[in-house]
């Protein structure tokens, strides 16, 4: 059964690799539209990863260290994008930041239009990738426990010093693996991006969207670009597995989901 499970993942990748038009591989992935899409994907994924860190670190700290009513509810909501179809996430974002959306209406008055812009791509990627960072980091924070922090405090360290010199160094591996996974999830994001940001070359057409588009016209290009995404995903999984054991298992399961997001 284990072999069968492994095959289920490996076989399709191998089948795809077998269909690659190797002589044309380099020209196919270096075409102007491909490079534009790849560049946009890398830039937006980097931006959404940064946003995930900025928003996710405080969130993970609150979930792991504080106790307050509604904490379990908050955790469930943070995890929601993991189980939500990305298309649904995109629609939800559209009704929040779109022209007629909850916040979009007011932003529109300020002359800011979010939907169908590069910012929308970043927002969509952040939406789907945030849980990966929060889950990884919260796990690391819980493993590290509050006991080192308590000892640090009794030794005379201010809360800021405890955070900087004890908490952050202890959870750095968890934070790194969470960031890598968020990056991978952002890179593979398709459904929410298409719904919320559209597919405008150079502005919102990321690599997965480009692949989907090319499939209609140039199957060889689609396959070649897919292989590029697989390579990136494998690199990311390898990177997060290099982390310490305690985050290894969590990273493994979530990494599989991240790759799944890239091939949909």
């Amino acid at each position, binding site marked *: 059964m284990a072999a069968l499970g492994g095959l289920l993942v490996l076989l399709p990748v191998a089948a795809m690799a077998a269909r690659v038009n190797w002589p044309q591989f380099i020209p196919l992935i270096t075409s102007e539209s491909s490079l534009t899409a790849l560049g946009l994907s890398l830039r937006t994924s980097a931006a959404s990863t940064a946003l995930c860190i900025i928003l996710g670190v405080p969130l993970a700290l609150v979930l792991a260290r504080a106790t307050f009513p509604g904490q379990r509810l908050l955790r469930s909501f943070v995890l929601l994008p993991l189980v939500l179809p990305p298309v649904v996430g995109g629609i939800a974002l559209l009704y929040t930041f779109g022209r007629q959306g909850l916040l979009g209406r007011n932003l529109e008055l300020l002359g800011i239009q979010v939907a169908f812009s590069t910012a929308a791509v970043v927002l969509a990627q952040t939406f789907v990738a945030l849980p990966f960072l929060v889950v990884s980091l919260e796990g690391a924070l819980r493993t590290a426990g509050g006991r080192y922090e308590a*000892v640090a405090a*009794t030794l*005379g360290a*201010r*809360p800021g010093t405890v955070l900087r010199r004890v908490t952050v160094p202890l959870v750095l591996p968890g934070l790194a693996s969470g960031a890598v996974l968020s990056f991978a999830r952002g890179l593979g994001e398709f459904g929410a991006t298409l719904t919320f940001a559209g597919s405008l070359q150079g502005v919102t057409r990321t690599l997965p969207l480009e692949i989907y588009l090319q499939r209609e016209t140039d199957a060889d290009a689609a396959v070649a670009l897919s292989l590029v995404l697989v390579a990136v995903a494998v690199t990311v999984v390898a990177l997060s597995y290099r982390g310490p054991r305690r985050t290894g298992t969590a990273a493994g399961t979530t990494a599989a989901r991240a790759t799944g997001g890239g091939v949909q």
Partner: protein
Amino acid sequence: MTFRLDAAVEARGFDVSLTVGPAETVAIMGPNGAGKSTLLAVIAGLLHPDAGGAEVDGKILFDLAGGRPSWTAPHLRGTALLAQEPLLFPHLTVLENVAFGPRSKGVPRREARKAARRWLGAVDAGELAARRPAELSGGQAQRVAVARALAADPQLLLLDEPMAALDIHAAPLLRRLLKQVLAERRAIIITHDVLDALMLADRVIVLEDGRVTEAGPTRDVLQRPRSRFVAGLAGLNLVAGTLTEHGVRTAAGQEFAGQHDSATEAGAFIPGQAGVAVFPPSAVSVFLTEAHGSPRNSFPVAVTDLEPHGDQIRVRAGDLSADITPAASADLGLAPGMTVFFVIKAGAVSVYPA
């Protein structure tokens, strides 16, 4: 110039008052769940009590009594905590771990390191300075943890069973070290070990169910236990009941004849008052039939366990025990479940108010 605490934590049924003198070490003993760790957490500021107050050398740690409650954050209390596990920061070297306290107080890096080296030398761990905590043995790590706690220059050192996680070879070394460093220092040490209490502490406070049940100089408390817990620590048998003219009567109506502990309280007891009869297991003889002749106590018990105890056999019967020679045990053919008679000379039983 003392440490004074008076605190209640309702959710844990905890209500304790105590004081510790300037260079005094107090041992806290008590069964599991008695509130020993709660006590340290309240003092260190890691747990918020519901009522009470505490101060050390005039500095208020917390005061929840008045109309305006005050609360000093843990890092401003000067109450370094040494736990069962060393809890050295795994990402810092030994030297940086010890320098952590001074650094946190704003001491420049070089001076903090110099102080750290000095403290590492004091705990005989100078050669470990460059190592990571993962490269230390349990005993080494705990020695470094002692240096780290001392380097923070605490006004009150809190030790939560510092020897409990060490193997039997490392524990004596650390105990000797602690005896040195605690000599001129104010400290509270939680321990399960009578030896720690005798060697390291000036006074012992016994906690049971979140309350202080006994307190006093270590030797006195152990010599005159008033609770079954302390009697167990001191290796003595204890029977609780009410005082009579000749001894103690248990709730079940059994009479224990003994010597009233009269040196200090001649005639001071009131018959009917709660009291205890205490006697060492070595004063108990074991017979198969009832022995007669006064003044002796003789009563039937069911043997629950036999175990080696030094070069003797300890015969346990419920809460009571007797120490007899292996030869005597063999002669009597003792086995768990047998009914035998415990016989104790009245002269060997101390009786005093509880």
